[in-house]
């Protein structure tokens, strides 16, 4: 059986989509902040919704809701299964 693994940027995900973090490419300080908020490689992310103006986006991670800008989400690579 073949598993379909699609890799994409978190910023390209639509509300209702979910996936696991594959990598985060950004400056060390920002990356550390995301890690400390519980966004680790392998963590599951559910995209909940976009703000009324289309940016920022709201995600669910470790059972809580977090919003981040699309520019920030664009540095997070996701594996949707």
């Amino acid at each position, binding site marked *: 059986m073949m598993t379909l693994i699609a890799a994409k940027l978190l910023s390209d995900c639509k509300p209702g989509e979910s996936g696991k973090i594959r990598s985060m490419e950004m400056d060390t300080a920002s990356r550390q902040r995301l890690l400390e908020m519980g966004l680790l490689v392998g963590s599951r992310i559910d995209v909940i919704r976009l703000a009324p103006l289309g940016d*920022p986006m709201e995600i669910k991670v470790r059972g809580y809701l977090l*919003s981040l*800008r699309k520019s920030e989400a664009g540095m997070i690579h996701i594996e949707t299964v």
Partner: protein
Amino acid sequence: MKTSVRVSSARNFAIAGNPNCGKSTLFNALTGLRQKIGNYPGVTVERKLGEFRGLHGEPMTLLDLPGTYSMQVRSPDEAVSRDVLLGKRKDTPRPDAIICVVDASNLERNLYLVAQILELELPVVVALNMVDVAEAAGIRIDVPALEQALGVPVIPMVARTGRGVVDLKAVLSDPARLKVGATAPMDPAFEREIRSLAENLDPNSPVAKIEAALWISQPVLDELPEPQRMWIEQSQTRLKSAGLDPFSAPVEARYDWIQELCADAVHRSGSESASVSDKLDTVLTHRLWGWVAFASMMALVFFSIFTVAAYPMEWIDTAFNALADAARAVIPAGDFQSLVADGIIAGVGGVVIFLPQILVLFFFLGLLEDSGYMARAAFIMDRVMSRVGLHGKSFIPLLSSFACAIPGIMATRTIENRKDRQVTILVAPLMSCSARLPVYALMIAVLLPMGSALEKAGILLVMYAIGTVAAFGMAWLFKKTLLRGDTPMLLLELPPYKMPVVGTVTLRMLERAKIFLVRAGTVIFALSILLWALATYPKLPADANPADALANSFAGQMGHAIEPIIRPLGYDWKIGIGLIASFAAREVFVGTMGIVYNLEDVDETSQSLIDTIRSQVGPDGLPVFTPLVCLGLMVFYVLAMQCISTVAIVRRETNSWRWPIFQIAYMTLLAYAGALIVYQGGRLLGFQ
């Protein structure tokens, strides 16, 4: 890695936790009204210290640490917290133990801070807050298992209702139960590097190892001098070449540890059905309804500021007038009477009058904050604010400044990023506040005596628009130049909605009111006396008319002195007196013009004042208040600082005179330029 250290008797506690975990509620539940708020000496960081009694009535102190997600230092405030916890600040003793508040419904991320605090080798008590919310969400926490894994007491509680507070006190009063807990296992190579770094940094310090561990995973080391900085960077490089990322490895190790212990201690039951909070969010952040809800809520806050606050403002005005009259009756006529009645009482009254607006605004902001809506407002507005390089959180302070810049500036405390907060403070007074209305009203009446309500409202709207555009434009400019910095990440938590605790909201409101009265009050008191003296001395004989006396005073002389400067704006020295006298408070302009033109008891609706102003002619026989002068004067008041209370509060909030002075300078320049463009530009286009 379990150590057990006993404390003979603990007296000084600190309370830490993530934002939105209910830390303030617990702090208030423990200390009630016995709180002292001040600044750490020498820095702008607020220190909140409370007192409470232990189970047996023993006095204890509780230091409130700012809500944070991590011990990693990213701002001066966090550096202060770290130094306190390491016992490195002379003004604040190292706490005997730390109360860590965690949100039971969001345990994993909340435990991250606990994991870091456990590494400080201080006794820890975990206050497992909001267990009711967790239970409602189908989360059951095995408290003994959690205690076992963390190695410290875990007290289930609901701080909002007071449930569990006595249990917490029982632990705090029992030295045998206060102990240093377990920590997440770190890579041996990491531990070795920490030990050797500690040797370098300060082998004699009892906290050297803890400090080294904090430094080694810190990406930005700007606050450190050499050679410490070099040692740390060398350690970081060595770890990296050994294949261990010093910035992410410890974070991952802690989360691994947390995940493991949560697997044992946290049991979820039931399906993840949409909670009430989720349902609320589908409406409150909806593409259409989200805006409707947002606009209605902001309208309600505004409406309340202008209507509800209007009554007590009236009372305060009446009371201070009565007080001034009483002073005049009691104190014999003379300089001292004038100082007390016209200087001090009128000056302080002119500031206290803002108190109702501050109370109303902070009550509503408190409700919005406590209910969880404030984060949604920032979520909705972030796109707009990010266009000028600001964070969504800057929106509420700027909006509040339409009522009054003082509560707006005080509301900037929710902005974590220091530069963003400074930019917001710098531009907030450009938003047209209610104190400008009398000036606008007078000038519009002079400009359009026969104008329809629609025309008048149109001009008013233009003035508000100019202020708003200027605020956003200057914010953009400051972010590009003076306070340049990377646009901070949004990373905004959207906590579940909950019913606000009125007690907490009220307490916070009173806290802000007290700061305003005490801190701003002292500066305002001194400046009121100064301005009174400028408008009173040197004196003319008592029978001289007030207009001549004012013209002869220092303020009058200054009006004459600045005439060459304000001439290009189309102003004469009499308007100059108005500008100088209203430096403390814009609305004083109206009353001052009344005195200048020798009218008694005028306000912005007085026909006599409007007619007198309209009939003024200059030495050349032409009218002084041409349409361009009126418009230019309005633009001047849109853009100029002209508010001593704001100056005082900016001084207080930035802890330096540098920012308020810069703010006066740039706003006055902007106001001058604006009025100049209106007047000279208008003339070039053939208007008068």
